[in-house]
C-alpha cells in the first residue's frame, strides 16, 4: 500500500510526530511505501535544525532526517506555514526540503491512504 503522511504538530509538545515516525518505520518494515511525509501547521517545527533536546531523550528532528536518508523518504515542509513560524532554509535540518501545499494535494492523489497525525 502507498501511504502519505501528514504531520500537523511540532516535536515534543505533541506526541503526533513520534507516533507518525513509528508508524512510518513500521509501514516500511512491513513492505509498504511511504510516498511523502508532509509537515503542516506547527508540524514544520519538526524540521528545525536548532532543536536541542535533553541528551538522554530522543532527538526527533534527527530521527526524521536519519529515517529519510535510510529509506529514501521525501520529507516536505510547507513553505507558507514555515515562513510564518521562521522555518526557512537557514534553519532547515538535514533530510527536509521546503515546498508548497501542492505537494500535500499531490500525495492525496498519488497515495492509497493519507494518514494524519495531529492533536
Amino acid at each position, binding site marked *: 500500500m502507498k501511504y502519505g503522511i501528514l504531520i500537523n504538530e511540532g516535536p515534543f509538545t505533541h506526541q503526533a510526530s513520534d507516533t507518525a515516525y513509528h508508524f512510518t518505520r513500521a509501514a516500511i518494515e512491513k513492505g509498504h511505501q511511504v510516498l511523502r511525509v508532509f509537515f*503542516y*501547521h506547527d508540524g514544520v517545527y519538526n524540521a528545525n535544525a536548532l532543536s536541542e533536546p535533553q541528551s538522554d531523550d530522543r532527538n526527533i528532528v534527527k530521527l526524521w532526517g536519519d529515517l*529519510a536518508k535510510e529509506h*529514501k*523518504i*521525501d520529507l516536505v515542509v510547507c513553505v507558507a506555514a514555515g515562513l510564518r513560524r521562521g522555518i526557512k532554509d537557514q534553519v532547515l535540518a538535514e533530510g527536509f526540503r521546503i515546498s508548497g*501545499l501542492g505537494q500535500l494535494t499531490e*500525495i492525496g492523489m*498519488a497515495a492509497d491512504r493519507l494518514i*494524519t497525525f495531529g492533536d
Partner: protein
Amino acid sequence: MSDEIQTEYDTAGVEKKFMFLNRKAPYGTIYALEMLETVLISAAFDQDVTLVFMDDGVYQLKKGCDTKAVNMKNFSATYKALGDYDISKLFVEKESMEARGLTQDDLIEVIYEDEDDDWAEKPAIHVKSRDEIAKLMEEQDVIISA
C-alpha cells in the same frame, strides 16, 4: 539502484474525492486559516472537493466578523471567493449549528456558477445532518481535518 529520493509522482488522470473537515473557530487557533490555504491550493488540481464545517467550524461561515479589535487579518471574504475556484459544496452540520444557536440566516452567502446549468448562480452552502455527513465521509478518498 537510484540514490535519489522520489519527489514527483504521476497523478495524470486522477480525480479523487477530497473532504476538508473544519472543526475549529476562525480565530483562536490558526487551523481555520491554514485549512483554507490548503483548500485554495487544492482547487488547482481539479479534484472533487467538499468542505464540511462542524463543531466550532460552523463559526467560520458566520456573518459580520470584525477582527479590528484583535488586529488579525480578516479572512472571511476568502470563503465567498471559493465559488470562483469551482468549489461548490460547503456543508455545515445541522447539529453543530443548533448547539450554537445558529441558523442559515447567520451565515454568509457563497455563490458558484453551475457549468452544467448554463452557468446559473447557485448557493454553495447547505446545511446537512450529522448522519448525512457521516455517509458522505464514507464516500471520500481523502479526508483532511483540522
